[in-house]
């Protein structure tokens, strides 16, 4: 029965929210629905985490808990099932998504046309949650696209600046990525088994292990690039600066906080999990690309003057680090990658929330036109400093543990390759990636110095007010989460580690 499985409720609750919002009369009711729903989702995901930690291993199917599968389009020749199941990473991602949705709905407390806005926002979140709970290629792809398309209207209608251009560009580029992805997935389907009983089910495909190396060389780039576009991989990242710059606050939060994670998640969950040989043989190409985007994003962030552009580029750099670490094919590094996803998700959401709040008051995002915010709106300014510290990897906040894990893992891998005569590519790019911590410090402190400190640039800013209670709530929540990851990393590490154990993840096993 469908509703016996807890995971279904991650899609069901948003659907109910959708219905609820549709029935709402005024903004108060809409807020109520949004808050109640997202709180329920948080509760659900927290329960899931707790349940996951104590669930006995036998209940898992290839490391997937709450596994179950229902027939969907299952006439012969096309057996599409709706298969759900979660492991540590998905659980963590679900938690992240629900938190961001919660804070996001607070951040858009006074949005115009609330009804339509929340309808689209919730539709987007349906896509996100669905993507994280399903392990069936078709369903994953469907939810993936469900999550993409609302961006167009959310940016187009509620956005600011050059919104038409940005919205169209973002949608088309992401859809372009998903075009390649679709071909890759169908290709995987038709090579999913040796005996003609093709399947879309991730686990079965992995078990069959029937994709010939030659086909992997063709399908791996398709899928990896397909997801990589959403992961802001160089050179397919250019949607991100414009898109984020024009998007309304909550959308930037959800998009940078959660949606970009879909890219990284898909990269290892589909591309690398199913096609280990190609993952090992072709890793170097994408290592170069992602390694570039790590420093490239950081460097270009150094000279931007628009707050959102700065964060967009820093997202390019951080998400580049995620993909980079995933490509290390090393348990530690990949664990770090997922922690980086969590950390980046939270702190980027925090950043965009704060930027939105500041922009809502000053009506400019140009840091040369602002200054001394610490004096004017101390609460927001302090939050901004904390976010910045998290972003440049201050211990005790989430950024540090993620980056440290990644660097240790990648360095181990790089040295191992180097000594094994496997070339020094990984080593060199690890060191290059390490340099990004300095560059990050440069641009973060540049912003903090220009925006928060120093004399007040514009006299009109002096009568601006500090954060309202809902803004305080949403930012405080995020800060608490960031600090939680930073102070108790082992908890999350245990959550995530299981996914990347070499017995389950053949790509890693091969790499040893």
């Amino acid at each position, binding site marked *: 029965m469908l509703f016996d499985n807890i995971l279904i409720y991650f899609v069901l609750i948003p659907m109910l929210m959708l219905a609820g919002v549709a029935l709402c009369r005024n903004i108060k009711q809409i807020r109520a629905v949004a808050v109640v729903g997202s709180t329920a989702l948080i509760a659900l995901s927290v329960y899931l985490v707790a349940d996951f930690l104590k669930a006995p291993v036998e209940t898992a199917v290839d490391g997937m808990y709450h596994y179950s599968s229902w027939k969907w389009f299952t006439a012969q020749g096309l057996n599409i099932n709706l298969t759900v199941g979660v492991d540590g990473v998905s659980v963590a991602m679900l938690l992240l998504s629900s938190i961001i949705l919660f804070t996001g709905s607070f951040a858009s407390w006074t949005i115009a046309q609330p009804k339509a806005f929340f309808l689209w926002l919730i539709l987007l979140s349906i896509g996100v949650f669905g993507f994280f709970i399903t392990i069936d290629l078709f369903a994953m792809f469907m939810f993936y696209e469900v999550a993409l398309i609302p961006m167009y209207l959310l940016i187009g209608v509620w956005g600011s600046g050059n919104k038409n251009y940005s919205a169209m560009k973002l949608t088309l580029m992401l859809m372009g990525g998903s075009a390649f992805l679709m071909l890759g997935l169908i290709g995987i389907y038709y090579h999913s088994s040796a005996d003609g009983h093709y399947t879309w089910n991730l686990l079965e495909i992995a078990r069959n292990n029937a994709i010939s190396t030659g086909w992997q060389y063709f399908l791996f780039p398709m899928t990896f690039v397909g997801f990589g576009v959403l992961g802001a991989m160089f050179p397919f990242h250019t949607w991100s600066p414009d898109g984020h710059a024009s998007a309304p606050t909550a959308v930037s939060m959800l998009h940078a906080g959660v949606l970009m994670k879909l890219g990284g998640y898909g990269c290892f969950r589909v591309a690398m999990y199913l096609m280990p040989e190609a993952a090992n043989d072709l890793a170097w190409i994408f290592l170069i690309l992602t390694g570039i985007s790590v420093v490239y994003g950081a*460097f270009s962030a150094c000279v931007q003057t628009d707050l959102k552009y700065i964060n967009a580029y820093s997202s390019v750099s951080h998400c580049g680090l995620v993909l980079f670490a995933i490509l290390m094919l090393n348990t530690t590094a990949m664990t770090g990658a997922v922690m980086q996803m969590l950390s980046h998700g939270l702190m980027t959401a925090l950043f965009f929330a704060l930027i939105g709040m500041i922009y809502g008051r000053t009506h400019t995002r140009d840091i040369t036109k602002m200054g001394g915010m610490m004096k004017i709106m101390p609460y927001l300014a302090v939050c901004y400093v904390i976010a910045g510290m998290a972003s440049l990897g201050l211990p005790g906040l989430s950024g540090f543990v993620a980056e440290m894990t990644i660097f240790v893992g990648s360095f181990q891998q790089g040295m191992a390759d180097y000594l094994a005569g496997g070339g020094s590519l990984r080593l060199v790019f690890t060191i290059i990636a390490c340099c990004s911590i300095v560059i990050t410090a440069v641009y973060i402190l540049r912003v903090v110095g220009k925006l928060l400190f120093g004399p007040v640039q514009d006299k009109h800013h002096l009568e601006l007010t500090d954060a309202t209670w809902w803004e305080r709530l949403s930012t405080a929540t995020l800060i608490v989460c960031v600090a939680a990851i930073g102070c108790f990393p082992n908890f999350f590490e245990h959550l995530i580690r299981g996914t990347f154990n070499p017995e389950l993840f053949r790509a890693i096993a091969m790499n040893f």
Partner: protein
Amino acid sequence: METSAILILAIPLLMFLFLGLAGKYLPHKWAGILGTCGMGVTMVLAYTVAFEYFFSGNSFFINEAGDRLQHVVFNHDWLNFYDKLTIRLGFLLDPISAMMLVVITTISFMVHLYSNGYMRDHHGVWETGFQRFYAFLSLFSFSMLGLVVATNIFQMYIFWELVGASSYLLIGFYYTKPSAVSASKKAFIVTRFADLGFLIGILVLSFYVGLYSEGNITDAFTFTSLTSVPVDGLTDTFSVSEGTAQVIRDLFQNSAAPMFMGASVLTWALVLIFMGGMGKSAMMPLHIWLPDAMEGPTPVSALIHAATMVVAGVYLVARLFPLYLMAPAALDIITVVGAITALYAAMVACAQIDIKRVLAFSTISQIAFMMVSLGVTRLDHSVALGHEVHEGLGYMASMFHLFTHAMFKALLFLGAGALIHAIGSNDYTAMHGLRKYMPITHITFLIGCLAIAGIIPFAGFFSKDEILTACFGHSTVWAIWMAVVAGLTAFYMFRLYFLIFWWKEHKVHDEHHAPHDQPWTMTLPLVILAVVSIFAGFVPFGSLVTWNGHPITGSGFLTNLENLNWSVAALSLIIAIVGIMVAMKMYKKENELPAKMRNALPRLWDWCHHRFYWDELYMFITHRIIFGLVCRPIAWFDRHIIDGTMDAFAAVTNKVSYAIRGFQSGNVHMYVWCYLAGAVLLAVITMICVL
């Protein structure tokens, strides 16, 4: 023991959280009192812990042979990288950490107390953000304590970053002042750059330890084991499990073998780690942030940029000293860097106007002393001017100097703070002849100067003398070099002293605005520190703090005097006195001599005054090269090339769609033409292909 250990870390942290969150609802007075009391408690706890460690004779801390042991009070898993490697947070007690506990808490408490007076103006109006100031102070104390009691290199790195951050916050305390903001930014980024080296060094070490160890390499990273390496012949006296000791032995026997660019990876790792130390301890060429850091409130300068944080680099090297002993090349590098920095800083200090900057450069030069004395430490039996030198003397001397220097430099800074608070300006041209008006400040400042100049029996004399001895033991050249620097030190310190308190009478416009001694909250710390800097020299360090726990001297009150190497002592004394004489000749009374000298060597003066143009060089590199030649081009490339290509796709599609619109001409003939052509072409092409 454990509880007090935990409390030592917990109290400042809680104080930070409390003052940071609730501070702004507290009245200023209470915030200050609360912070000070908290620090006081911490200090007491630290004293008890240190006392227990050194003097209780507990078998945890000292074995039958009288060797001091390393004791891990507690150690908890924090982050697990992989089955072999885990970061732990813990509390390590050994001679240097105990010593540092004392130093940090003492100075920190003094500063907390002092700030109650300093952070308000003459009419008793509090600085804005007074509570924030105390919160940051607590944060810094917490991080610094965590750093010194680190049980392993990762924990050290973690707190290393934290002290950096809190120093950033404190330097930028006056955040409305652009100069302060840029100074804090500079400090953070420069040290961050250095930490990059530290990080990579750690990574290298971690990899090789992992490579050559069967078991769990977590232990291999605790200092207890890293520092317990048996070095040629000497058996390890620190208590570690044989297994981890084995790991370390393997590490150094094997990974010393793989060479990279002519040096063993171990050397590389240690040099990279030392790079981190250079950043924090402001060694050349990474020293540029420290002088600017004086933008922070003076108590902060006293605490962070004179006594505690800046010596973290020295502390790091001391921590890993047994490893450095295995890579003499690294030690030589340390020596050279230290020696050059010492001379450079001393020369620059002679030509500064701003008294805090003078003190800053003197700090740099003194820390360089410590570095050098670590760098010249070898275990081979050596002789200095006829007297034989204990092996590992330099290590002891360096720690000793760290201790004494912390005291008298804090004293000097707080004194300077008092002056600045009274005069309201940083440069001595506004002071001159203050001795009558501020007697207490005058005396204490004088004591500080004597101590740093190394006049017997003040603290500086003993430590500096030991350092010089160690230098002579290693190489005469460096010894002479450092002796000269010592002379310079005496000179510029007394130049400063005379220029502030003598030179010419202070003009007072009206009586009740005359500068005067500050409230007790500010003078009391001065007095205390002055007393300490008189007597600190007699602490029998040789029996307390040595690199491997072997006491090298007795523990009597006069040991230091008895064990003096009188030839070296005489030399250093003579040099110091000469320096002071010259300074007195030039600056006691207003005269033409300084101007004459300046005109005699204009180039030298300029270079010293402008700190050899290092800042300009850095400005050039960062702005012209990094920003101008890297960032902007990349940003341009991204907008115009990468993004341009994406837009080009769209543009081309549109162009094409306009280009082919002619087919839809609306004319039936055209349609039929196309139809026919299509059908025929289809047929013809297929025929060509198939037949």
